[in-house]
């Protein structure tokens, strides 16, 4: 197993950009997901990646049927155009999904869980329908759903790094406001005049993180990296900085370890990372239980 780590961390390794991509996703997604978990919006973290995947599927479909012009002259150009369109589609559908959820929330249509359940079903079925009516989209979307980050190029890694660095900077800069708006809305009204700005900022950051994460790693892996690390570290930490830092480190750790496991045993990357994350949750709770026994 140690040999697998040595090989994948060698810069000459063919999939080295994908290794770094998994680590970057693992570092940033849990920080955004940490807020989703605390705000009791975990289902939003499940639904928005579905919208992002549906957007990517729609973009590929639109490109293939000629709704979007084909500017590329070579197969390489065409692939770049497809990837770019998929990014745009992913972002647009994510924000459309967020707007739809915000509007229905404002109008008080049903309960929060039921709105998210309907939205999840809608996004999931749209994705399958776009793929079904465009059979050539199958392979690309299957890779997306399985969470195959192995296709990441250096240019995409640079874009992911730049956008996620900006997201992290915003989260760090406005950490106090985002925390206060999540924990106590009345206090935020008294001290900052309301929560609208901070809710909007958080949802923008979450939307960008999720849309990009889905394009790099698929909806299931993005959801897992968003919520599993913060859920695992929650019973073990005291204080918000340790919560976010530990979530981020655990995310990066399972991203890297999952890659090594997938490489060593030749299994799909996404499920390997998720299985590790899922294993950490009961382990962390058991550890917290034992630590509690010793404290008493």
């Amino acid at each position, binding site marked *: 197993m140690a040999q697998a780590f040595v090989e994948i961390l060698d810069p000459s390794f063919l999939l080295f950009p994908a290794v770094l991509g998994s680590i970057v996703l693992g570092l940033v997604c849990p920080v955004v997901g940490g807020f989703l978990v*605390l705000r009791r919006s975990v289902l939003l973290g499940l639904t928005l990646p579905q919208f992002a995947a549906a957007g990517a599927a729609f973009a590929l479909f639109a490109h293939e049927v000629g709704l979007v012009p084909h500017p590329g002259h070579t197969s390489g150009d065409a692939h770049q155009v497809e990837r770019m369109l998929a990014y745009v589609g992913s972002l647009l559908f994510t924000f459309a999904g967020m707007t739809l959820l915000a509007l229905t929330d404002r109008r008080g249509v049903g309960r929060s869980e039921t709105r998210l359940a309907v939205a999840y079903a809608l996004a999931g079925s749209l994705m399958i329908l776009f793929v079904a009516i465009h059979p050539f989209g199958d392979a690309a979307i299957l890779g997306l759903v399985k969470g195959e980050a192995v296709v990441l190029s250096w240019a995409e890694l640079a874009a992911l790094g730049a956008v996620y660095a900006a997201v992290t900077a915003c989260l760090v800069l406005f950490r106090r406001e985002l925390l206060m708006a999540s*924990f106590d809305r009345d*206090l935020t009204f008294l001290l900052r005049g309301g929560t609208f700005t901070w809710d909007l900022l958080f949802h923008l950051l979450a939307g960008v993180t999720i849309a990009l994460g889905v394009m790099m790693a698929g909806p299931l892996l993005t959801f897992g990296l968003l919520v599993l690390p913060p859920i695992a570290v929650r019973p073990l930490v005291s204080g918000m900085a340790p919560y976010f830092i530990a979530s981020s480190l655990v995310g990066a750790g399972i991203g890297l370890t999952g890659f090594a496991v997938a490489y060593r045993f030749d299994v799909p990357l996404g499920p390997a990372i998720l299985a590790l994350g899922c294993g950490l949750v009961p382990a962390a709770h058991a550890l917290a239980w034992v630590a509690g026994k010793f404290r008493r």
Partner: protein
Amino acid sequence: MTASDSPERPLLALQHACLGYGPEPVLDDVHLRIGAGEFVGLAGPNGSGKTTLLRSMLGLLPLQDGNVERHLPRTRLGYVPQHASLDAYFPLSVWEVAAMGAYGRLRPWRLFPRGERQRVDAALAQVGLVRLGRSVFSHLSGGQRQRALIARALTVDPALLLLDEPFAGVDRDAREDIARQLEEINRNSSLAIVICSHDGDLLARFCDRVIQVSDGRVHGGVRETG
């Protein structure tokens, strides 16, 4: 003679106020004046509208009718919600909860300045929680959580402190402790305090005056003069 019965303007006043959430008001024709340095209790049975009145005083609930006068900025209002209304899932330490009171004065890019840290420490000392500063807020007892929220409200540097059922879910000894600490804070710093509680007897023992909230009305909201 206190500020509430003096011709001086009060910190906060409601006139002919109609308060509620739907078409039927919870409280009607409310007259209320809170002067500087006063220690006022709002007593009444559960569901009588005490929290509605408190939220309207804070500006969290708009009036359906009437006027509210606040002669202090919103950022000088210290609010202590019921501890059970806050989500216990947050792994916040007691110190972090108390520090939130300073957030209104800090720009996003600023680190937590030393002066503000000292203010947080002083607020925790006032409620006797310095030793528990690093503990997880949700691991504390009901009384300790309530005191942490009082420390947070004190960190705001308030001119008026409003507490919503601070004795709810708190044992008898802790209730007395909290009431005594609030009385001490009121006496030492001349901070105006409004407490709402269904425990009218406890309020009568500690407060300068007790306003009764019942049957959709507020009785004794303005001190009788002469």
